[in-house]
C-alpha cells in the first residue's frame, strides 16, 4: 500500500484538509501523514469508512513532546566587505518544535494492510493543546488517549471520559513532557553518584544526608 495514494485519496475526499507527508529518515522507512487538527476527525473517519483500504484497527496511540528548539545553521552568503565581495558564513537561527504531537498507528485487519501513521499537532504547549478525539471512531483509543492526556496534557475534544489514567487525580504536572522536573526528595541511597547525588545534596541539608 502506497502512502502517496492514500494521501491523494484523502485530499480528494475530505475537502479543505491539509495533509503533509512526514518522511522518516531511518531505515524503517515508516513515513507518516500529518493532518491538521481541524480536519483530523473527518480524515480519520474517511480512513475508517471510505478509503480503498479501510483502516478498521487503531493499534497504537501515543504522544510526543517537541519543545521549542533553536537550530543554528551556517549559511554561506555573499557580502560586500570593504567594497569587495566575499563569502561569509552566517549563522541563521531557526526555531522548530513548540507543540505536542499525537501519533496514531492504523492497520486494516480485513485487508491485512498497514500501517498508516497519522499525526496531529497542537498549536502550542500551553493553551492551545486541543485535538479532536478519535475514540468515537475506534474504542481502542479510549485508554490510550486518556494516557496521552495524563502524561502529556493533550486535551482531546469529544473524548467520552477524559480523566487521568495512570497518575492520581489531583496530580498537576504532565510527567512525560521534556521539561518536567521530577521531584528531588530521593530517599537515602548509598550508591548515588553524578546528577542524582548532586540533586540529593541540594535537596537535603547536610544533617539529613547522614
Amino acid at each position, binding site marked *: 500500500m502506497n502512502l502517496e495514494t492514500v494521501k491523494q485519496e484523502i485530499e480528494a475526499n475530505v475537502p479543505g484538509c491539509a495533509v503533509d507527508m512526514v518522511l522518516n529518515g531511518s531505515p524503517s522507512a515508516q513515513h507518516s501523514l500529518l493532518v491538521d487538527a481541524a480536519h483530523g476527525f473527518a480524515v480519520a473517519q474517511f480512513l475508517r469508512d471510505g478509503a480503498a483500504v479501510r483502516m478498521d484497527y487503531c493499534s497504537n496511540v501515543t504522544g510526543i513532546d517537541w519543545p521549542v528548539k533553536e537550530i543554528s545553521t551556517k549559511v554561506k552568503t555573499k557580502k560586500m566587505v570593504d567594497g569587495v565581495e566575499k563569502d561569509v558564513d552566517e549563522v541563521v537561527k531557526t526555531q522548530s518544535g513548540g507543540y505536542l504531537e499525537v501519533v496514531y498507528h492504523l492497520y486494516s485487519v480485513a485487508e491485512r494492510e498497514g500501517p498508516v501513521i497519522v499525526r496531529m499537532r497542537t498549536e502550542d504547549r500551553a493553551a492551545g493543546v486541543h485535538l479532536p478525539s478519535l475514540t468515537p471512531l475506534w474504542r481502542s483509543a479510549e485508554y490510550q488517549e486518556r494516557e496521552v492526556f495524563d502524561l502529556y496534557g493533550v486535551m482531546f475534544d469529544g473524548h467520552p471520559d477524559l480523566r487521568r489514567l495512570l497518575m492520581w487525580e489531583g496530580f498537576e504536572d504532565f510527567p512525560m513532557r521534556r521539561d518536567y522536573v521530577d521531584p528531588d526528595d530521593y530517599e537515602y*541511597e*548509598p*550508591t*548515588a*553518584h553524578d546528577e*542524582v547525588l548532586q540533586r540529593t545534596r541540594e535537596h537535603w541539608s547536610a544533617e539529613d544526608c547522614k
Partner: protein
Amino acid sequence: MLGEGILKGLTETARNFFGSYVDDERLTTVQYPEERLEQIEATRDFPFLVYDGEDWEKGMRCVSCQICEKECPPKCISIEKSKDKKPDATGKAQFYPAKFDIDISVCMSCQICVEVCPFDAIKMDVVYELSTEDRFGGLLLNKEQLSKSNEYYNKIHPTEAGAVDAALAAEREKARQAAAAKAAEAKPAATAVVGAAAVERDGTK
C-alpha cells in the same frame, strides 16, 4: 450424565496423587532447605569482583574505568577512582578502585556490567540466601565483600570461566611479546602497552 465430566477430572487428580508415590516425575517438589536442587551453571544473581592470585587487594582485575558505573541501568554501582597506581596481578601499574560499592537491593541482576567490562573484572555470582534485617549494613556490599577469587569463579561457572581464562592468558602473552619486542627496539613505558591492549579489547566488545 451430569457430573460425568467432574468424575473424569477427579480420576485424573487421583492418578496424579497416587502416581506421586511411584513416579518421580509427578513428585516435583523438594524439601528446602534440607534438600536443594542442583545449581544450574548459567545462573546469575548479583555481581562480584574477580581477583587473581591469593590477595584480593593485590590481584584485583578492576582498573576503575567506571564503564559499569555509567552503564548500570538502575545505577547501583558507585566507584571512586584511586589517585595513585598500584601493580596489578601481572605487575603493571594500574589505577584501582578506592571505593567500589554495589547496592544489591537496587541491583536488578541484568548483568550489563559484566557485558560491558573490558577487563573481565566483574562477573555474576550465584549466592541467593542474602535476606537480612539490616538494609544498609547487609545489602550494601563494599570492595572487600565483593572480591572473590578466580578459583571461586571457576567453580561456579566452569565453562564461562575457562573461556575467560584462556582469552586472558592469550592476551597477556601477546602483551608480553609486544613489550619484549618494543623493549628490544627502544625503551618503552610499560603502561602504554597495557593501555593499548585495553583499547584493543574494548573495541572487540
